[in-house]
């Protein structure tokens, strides 16, 4: 056998061996140490992604970096100043890199009602946290479906400022209004924004005025409410035995709970004339309906109402001196009255709505106050003759009472209440949903039974509804679950049916959905410390690799290796066959 022949046979054998081994695909088990997997996540994808990229590049030399929170990573690095919305996917230990933005603005605590009657303006409030921007001007805008509808500008007086901002939307039609609150510092390019969705409904609060005897106080409050398009007012004024003046179809008596349950709030004039049955009925309305009750006293007289108010002793002031009764919340709608009554000690758990400040002491006297009774709320008026000062130039009588009654009515729960953690979602994003079934929740009967179904339905496309799984959570009548935003952007509605009732809540799926970034570096530091890590500022990013190395201890793990699955085997295989063919051709062989 010549040397040439031996070479050709060797080459042929190599090629055949590679082919045979590839067909057999042997598996080799070994214990190995690999690069630890680290998840890097930006808390605010808009503001923090650049820094998150830097962190990922920094860690990529030492670790296998994943740019999303994953539960099976060896550790997690959060980039930003805010807390994550969920801790489910976050692997411990958790480290945080706090950005050092100067100047910077963040919108925190963005608040808007989930729904509103069409005839109301929608307040959208937030706290703008501004850092390193003294002397600059902050501009906050509110846009509805892309059109700017309100704008606030104000100078920034210091380098660390928290500015409450309040803007308002005037709804133009019923339906979902997607609102975006945006803030920008003058001269800066970066804009922070947060999306909220408000369901504008052609729905009004149903209010019953019930006067066991004619009362000026109740009459003038009723007239103010009747002029407000947010309410539908039903009333009964009993003028004599078996004779009354009715508007709408009021219940004949207060102790008809089924009829009373149709109303969100009940306003009682001359409450000192209520009988025992009336008081029991009102108590049941408060506890089992969760409604609001307003007792409009126009004179001080003992009565059965004390069982509702729980006041031990009343104090009167009928000196005739006119005083201002100022709302606690700072609203400018003050009352004026010269005949006042207030509890000597506010009942436990009660809180003042409007008060007068006593000239003798610094403590205020609660003239109009509220108290929780069951799931409902009771409002008590002690400005007995405030109706005499109802002239708009003298007091804010109308606005005070429409606001107070609107709050009482809006707090009354609907038969089904849907609460979404986030109503504006990016495609694929998940949001928690909580559902309350009022009758099951407030009924004293136990055990209670409720059959609840929930679906996510598109309002724009004809796509089939997506079923949403709800599970009982805690108390009777309460359910919770999660909805995943569909891939297709658009407006959807969560539809919940229970015990013959139906409720809907809007969900807006948008590719550019923005969520409020809560700037809370202190909280975040404490949060990561509790998860075995620590927070580092952006300038100390170089220390992160060492800190992670110290915190994680990746154990060697058994790894199955299939060496023949590498595509590189094709190279020696082809080379061997080619060389063998070339040698044969050189020898003149076929």
């Amino acid at each position, binding site marked *: 056998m010549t040397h040439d022949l031996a070479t050709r046979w060797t080459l042929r054998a190599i090629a055949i061996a590679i082919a045979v081994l590839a067909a057999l695909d042997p598996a080799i088990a070994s214990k190995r140490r690999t690069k630890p997997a680290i998840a890097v996540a930006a808390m605010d994808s808009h503001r923090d992604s650049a820094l998150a990229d830097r962190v990922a590049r920094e860690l990529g030399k030492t670790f296998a970096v994943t740019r999303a929170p994953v539960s099976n990573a060896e550790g997690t690095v959060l980039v930003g100043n805010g807390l994550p919305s969920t801790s489910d996917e976050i692997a411990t230990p958790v480290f945080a890199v706090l950005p050092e933005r100067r100047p910077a603005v963040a919108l925190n605590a963005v608040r808007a009602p989930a729904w509103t009657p069409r005839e109301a*303006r929608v307040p959208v409030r937030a706290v703008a946290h501004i850092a390193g921007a003294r002397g600059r001007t902050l501009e906050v805008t509110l846009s509805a479906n892309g*059109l700017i509808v309100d704008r606030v500008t104000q100078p920034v007086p210091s380098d660390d400022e928290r500015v409450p901002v309040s803007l308002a939307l005037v*709804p133009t039609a019923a339906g979902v209004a997607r609102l975006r609150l945006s803030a920008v510092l003058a001269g800066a390019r970066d804009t922070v924004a947060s999306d909220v969705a408000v369901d504008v409904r052609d729905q009004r609060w149903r209010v019953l005025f019930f006067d066991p005897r004619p009362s000026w106080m109740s009459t003038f409050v009723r007239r103010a409410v009747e002029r*407000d398009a947010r309410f539908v007012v039903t009333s009964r004024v009993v003028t004599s035995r078996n004779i009354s003046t009715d*508007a709408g179809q009021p219940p004949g008596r207060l102790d008809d709970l089924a009829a009373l349950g149709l109303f969100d709030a009940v306003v009682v004039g001359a409450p000192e004339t209520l009988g025992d049955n009336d008081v029991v009925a009102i108590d049941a309305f408060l506890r089992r309906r*969760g409604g609001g009750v307003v007792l409009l006293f126009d004179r001080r007289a003992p009565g059965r109402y004390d*069982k509702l108010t729980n006041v031990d002793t009343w104090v009167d002031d009928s000196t005739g001196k006119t005083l201002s009764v100022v709302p606690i919340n700072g609203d400018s709608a003050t009352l004026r009255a010269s005949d006042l009554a207030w509890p000597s000690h506010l009942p436990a*758990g009660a809180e003042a709505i409007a008060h007068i400040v006593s000239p003798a002491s610094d403590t205020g006297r609660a003239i109009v106050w509220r108290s929780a009774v069951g799931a409902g709320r009771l409002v008590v008026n002690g400005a007995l003759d405030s109706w005499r000062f109802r002239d708009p130039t003298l007091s804010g009588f109308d606005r005070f009472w429409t606001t107070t009654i609107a709050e009482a009515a809006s707090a*009354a729960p609907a038969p089904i209440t849907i609460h979404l953690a986030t109503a504006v979602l990016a495609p694929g994003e998940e949001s928690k949903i909580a559902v309350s079934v009022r009758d099951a*929740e407030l009924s004293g009967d136990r055990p209670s039974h409720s059959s609840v179904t929930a679906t996510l339905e598109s309002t724009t496309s004809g796509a089939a509804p997506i079923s949403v799984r709800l599970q009982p959570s805690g108390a009777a009548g309460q359910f919770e679950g999660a909805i995943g935003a569909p891939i297709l952007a658009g407006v959807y509605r969560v539809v919940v049916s229970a015990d013959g009732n139906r409720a809907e809540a809007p969900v807006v799926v948008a590719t550019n959905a923005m969520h409020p970034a809560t700037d809370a570096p202190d909280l975040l530091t404490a949060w990561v410390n509790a998860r075995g890590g620590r927070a580092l500022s952006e300038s100390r990013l170089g220390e992160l690799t060492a800190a992670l190395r110290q915190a994680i201890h990746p154990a060697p793990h058994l790894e199955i290796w299939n060496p023949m699955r590498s595509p590189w085997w094709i190279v020696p295989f082809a080379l061997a066959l080619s060389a063998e063919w070339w040698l044969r051709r050189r020898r003149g062989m076929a």
Partner: protein
Amino acid sequence: MNAPPDASALRAFLARVSRRLAWTTAAEGAAAGLVVALVLVMAGWPSRGAPAKAIAAAASLAAAGMFVRWLFMRGRGERVALIVERRAPQCRNLVVTADELTMSNTVVDHIAVLVFSQTARLVNGLDLAALFPLRNSLIALALSTGLWTLAVARATTSEAESRGGGGGSSRAALAAISAIDVTVIPPAYTGKHVESMVDPARIEALVGSRVRLTVHARAAGVSMESIHTRDSLVASSSGTFEGELIADADGYVAIEPRSADGHAGVRRLIGISVLPDNAPRVRITAPARDLFLRDAHQTIDIAVDASDDLRLASLRLRFTKVSGSGERFTFTEGEVPMDIVRTNERMWKGHTTWRLDALGLSPGDMVVYRAVAADYRPGATPGESDSFIAEILLPGGDAAAGFALDPEQERYAVSQQMVILKTERLSARRAATSADAFTTAAQELAAEQRKVRAEFVFMMGGELADAPDLSGSLTDINEEAEAEGESDLLAGRMANQGRVALLRAIRSMSRAAASLTTADLGPALTHERAALAQLERAFSRTRIILRALTERERLDLTRRLTGVLTDAARDVHPAVDAQPSARVLGLRRTLAGIAALAGASPFTADAPAQTAALAESVLRVDASSKPLQDAAALLNNAGDAIAHGRSVDARALLDRAATGIAASLRGDLADAPAAALPADVNRLNGALNDALRHPRATP
């Protein structure tokens, strides 16, 4: 030597090549110029809607392109023969040689003839079209011309469409306004100049001004519409229409062109703000207080300031001299000359040193003076300053406050009832009183009676002439005085019966006073009681109530405390369902319209017409509201921006308009309450309260 014939053939060939090259070069240059013109048209220059400019620009650029290309060719300095040789290598320098020989014959003739003949044969066989194809240059020229034409046509068409309201009809596009000249002619009395504007967004005019509109439009007719009226403009010449309106209230004028077949073009909206002509303001700056003087030999330095928003016409100091006492007051009107300094036509100052000697004032008399300023507005009420008094004090007396009864002297306040009481007491004391003392007391009572009478006389305006004759008929009323008081009667300030009763009372008081003066107490008491009865009738409660209530609200006495108890029943009304105001509805509709308009990307062709309609709807809600005027102007500007293709500007303007309208709306609506707490939290609060209040938690 003459050039051989074949040389001429060569020259002719080269000339043909040269001409062909020139055409090719020109086509290439023109094509390049048109490409540049195309880019400029796409960039928006010249402005849309100016095709003539675009054509001129393109022609210039094409010419420039040809020139540049020619320069380039010339710069290369290449000979035609060389170019031919390069394109046709088979010539093997024969054409170049022959060309050179034509310029300088340096060889013997037979060689030249040979060269020329061979060259002639050679060039005869060459295909000029194949060697120098014009096709590509012509295609480039045609393509660039076509593209440029398309671009210009598109720009012109889109402009016409946007102005035509997106009707999609060429006829509608024909009706368009090119310019509006506005001439504001102020009322003649103002002396202000005529003001002219071109295409204003808003007109500010003094009330009563004439606003003349001259509309230049490509239309068969033009109409104008304001809040209350609609009118057609008169065609004064081809494409020019004129009309006029009077500026009497805030509002707008919408101008709409129409084509011959009735298609409407885009409306132009111009807001109108009417400035009021305020009355002159005048005040007495010195002494600017009431004066109480010891005697009438005094002088008063009086200074007056007057101003007007346009120009003052006059400034006067007027006085009323009040003399007399008791029931006899006389009033004399007069005027005090003043030196007037005119700072400018709007601000005057007056000054005078007023000598009271000339008035012949007696102790107790007074003068009431005030300044009066007038402007040139016909029929306008002059402005008056506060009135001040200068009173000559009675010896030992204090000044009375104006014309009110002297508060220090109780006698003025003695009522008729008290006069009767005192008369009855005097009558009862008559036996115990001396005759002189009785007479004196009766006369004192007569004086008191006169003072009570005087109070009522003042109440009726101080017209004593109306009751001159004590013996006259009680129903005889001075008809002239009654007619003068007709306006008061119509205004409800008097009731005829009450007035008659009051006159009767006054006359009874006069008779009572006369009887008391003669110490005749019996008739005096009769007249005093008659006066009282008349007073009671004049001021009866019924009369007061009837004067206070309108006919609609008059009490129906038949329904009060009458009827049968069993008829009493429940009074049922429908539930009260308040509706939002028309203002809220109107502005909300406009806001929704703006949102819909802004939501379209890109803007639709009828967007300019939509913005004009939205601006009009805003002004229809409240044309006098400044924020709404601003919002309408912003919408108009947004329409212009859309029409000129400035989408970014248009969106910013729409945002600002929406913000302004929303701000106006917010004041009409109440806040929605903050999100309610979940029911379980409320229940927990309630349970906590129950636990704290145990055992009295539930009734």
